[in-house]
């Protein structure tokens, strides 16, 4: 829907490929034309790249936007589009493949002079792992080269741990990603997750739209994102932007992407983690603070019109915070809570934006990601944005399914969040236990 809205504003005709479960969604009502790809299970619809490209070709599409889930980071989809002469709204297939493999991405980063977490190349034996770990210093983390998004990672705090987890890590890498290659990084104890929004033209020209802080995470799933990352010292922020731009230029990256970094709170330094070669869920906070429509930028680049703007056209103003609204019960282990929304009355007011496909009587299907919307607030300062966020959540009536807004309200009101004093461990170590102990509203 986010993409359809911009496309329609730009006068672009749209065709939306959906599964049988989504044929009556708001997005389907909005699209110029809807084609039903396959049945509800994503394996037979959204995850079948051939179906998606066949539908685009048969309906006469010039370009294909992959969204931000499902196939959006699969080189296969970009490859098929290239073969059919359809403009893929994203990077070249070869770029997606090169950045999708962690070891190869680390090599590109190193070539661009981008700081990476001290670590190793591919490690094949336990012996090599032990040697590397003692050189890096414990704790360390073993990661699957083909992994990402927090999957396929094992932390080891001592040599015994490493012995126990090495085989498990390589087995899991094999079973989850079909690739048992592992590498090792030093584990950063107190880190914040910061990322830079970039757009490249594919020829080495790159602009960035500032950074986001997405440190409020549970099992590597982001819950709250904000821009800018006000916890960063100024010199670190400049270094971060420069590193992201160098990396994206080095990769001759085309279209929108996100360069993710770890900010080591104790060392006051940033390290490259990975590139997300697609538009991300949290892109609206960058749009709110820069005033630029990132989907329009994507379509412009895909249409061969280049970036259409320079770095000086992009100014960060104020502060924006996004909370994800998931149909999950935060008081019951985040169990999915599909069902019908019986009451839906979102807040309205200055600085409030809601991106959603849900509404009154919407049936949250059990098949897909449980996200039903994103509430975004913008204010002149972080404090103003935060108070708007609290007011917006308090004014949001949402019944019929269990959802994460009560947790978001709790976090927004917590002294640590208010003081901007948290790391990626905060939610699991401090926030959730405190939430569980708090009375249910």
């Amino acid at each position: 829907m986010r993409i359809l809205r911009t496309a329609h504003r730009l006068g672009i005709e749209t065709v939306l490929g959906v599964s049988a479960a989504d044929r009556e969604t708001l997005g389907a009502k909005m699209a110029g034309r809807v084609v039903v790809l396959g049945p509800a299970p994503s394996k037979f619809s959204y995850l079948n790249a051939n179906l998606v490209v066949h539908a685009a070709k048969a309906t006469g599409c010039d370009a294909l936007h992959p969204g931000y889930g499902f196939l959006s980071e699969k080189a296969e989809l970009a490859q098929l589009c290239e073969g059919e002469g359809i403009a893929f709204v994203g990077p070249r297939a070869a770029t997606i493949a090169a950045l999708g493999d962690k070891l190869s991405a680390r090599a590109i980063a190193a070539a661009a002079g981008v700081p990476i977490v001290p670590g190793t190349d591919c490690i094949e034996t336990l012996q090599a792992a032990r040697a590397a770990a003692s050189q890096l210093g414990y704790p360390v983390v073993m990661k699957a080269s083909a992994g990402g998004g927090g999957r396929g990672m094992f932390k080891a705090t001592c040599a015994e741990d490493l012995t126990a987890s090495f085989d498990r890590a390589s087995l899991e890498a094999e079973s989850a990603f079909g690739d048992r290659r592992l590498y090792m990084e030093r584990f950063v104890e107190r880190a914040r997750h910061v990322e830079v929004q970039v757009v490249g033209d594919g020829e080495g020209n790159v602009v960035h739209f500032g950074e986001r802080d997405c440190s409020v995470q549970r099992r590597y799933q982001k819950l709250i994102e904000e821009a800018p990352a006000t916890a960063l010292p100024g010199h670190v922020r400049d270094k971060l932007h420069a590193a992201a731009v160098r990396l994206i230029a080095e990769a001759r990256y085309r279209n929108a992407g996100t360069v993710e970094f770890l900010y080591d709170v104790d060392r006051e330094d940033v390290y490259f983690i990975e590139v997300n070669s697609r538009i991300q869920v949290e892109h609206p906070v960058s749009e709110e603070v820069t005033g630029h429509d990132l989907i329009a930028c994507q379509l412009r680049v895909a249409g061969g019109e280049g970036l259409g703007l320079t770095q000086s056209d992009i100014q960060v103003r104020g502060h924006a915070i996004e909370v994800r609204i998931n149909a999950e019960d935060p008081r019951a282990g985040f169990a999915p809570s599909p069902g019908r929304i019986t009451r839906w009355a979102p807040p309205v007011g200055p600085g409030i934006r809601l991106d959603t496909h849900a509404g009154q009587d919407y049936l949250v299907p059990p098949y897909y990601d449980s996200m039903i919307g994103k509430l975004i607030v913008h204010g002149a300062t972080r404090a103003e944005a935060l108070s708007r966020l609290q007011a917006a959540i308090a004014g949001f009536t949402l019944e019929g399914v269990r959802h994460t807004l009560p947790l978001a309200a709790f976090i927004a009101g917590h002294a640590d969040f208010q003081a901007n004093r948290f790391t990626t461990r905060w939610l699991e170590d401090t926030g959730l236990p405190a939430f569980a102990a708090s009375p249910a509203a």
Partner: protein
Amino acid sequence: MSLKPNDIATLVELFNTSGWEEMHVEIDGLQLFISKDPKARLVGGLGGGTTMAPPIAPPVARAAAPVATAVAEPADGDIPAHWLKVCAPNLGTFYRSPKPGAAPFVSVGDRVTAEAEVCLLEVMKLYTAVKAGVTGIVRRVGVEDGSLVEHDTVLFYIEPA
């Protein structure tokens, strides 16, 4: 709470992908009974006077299993209620013949068995045969040869015999 057609479709999809053998739902006096056993009947029966929809055919091989369902409502005007639909399992280009110029797999009036291949669906040069899924006589071809069909588009109507 009112039940919408899409909700029923969702329930049927859920059932199809589940390991369940039977599902019985009752909401506001409306009863829905689905079973993978063609002979299954709801124990106790449905309320007096209610016509029960036949159980849906068990999904055969998942790859190209057409789901033959009874025409539940008097849709499509003149389609008799007992004709069964052969629907597209996924989006693709519909071909009635094994290759250009060849005779079609089936024509109106032909008798088919459940295992009979009735058409091809092409997705990015990959051709998959669609089986009738029911035994009967082909009564109508739902779409033009060579056209794009979506998931669930009715390809053929077959009169059980």
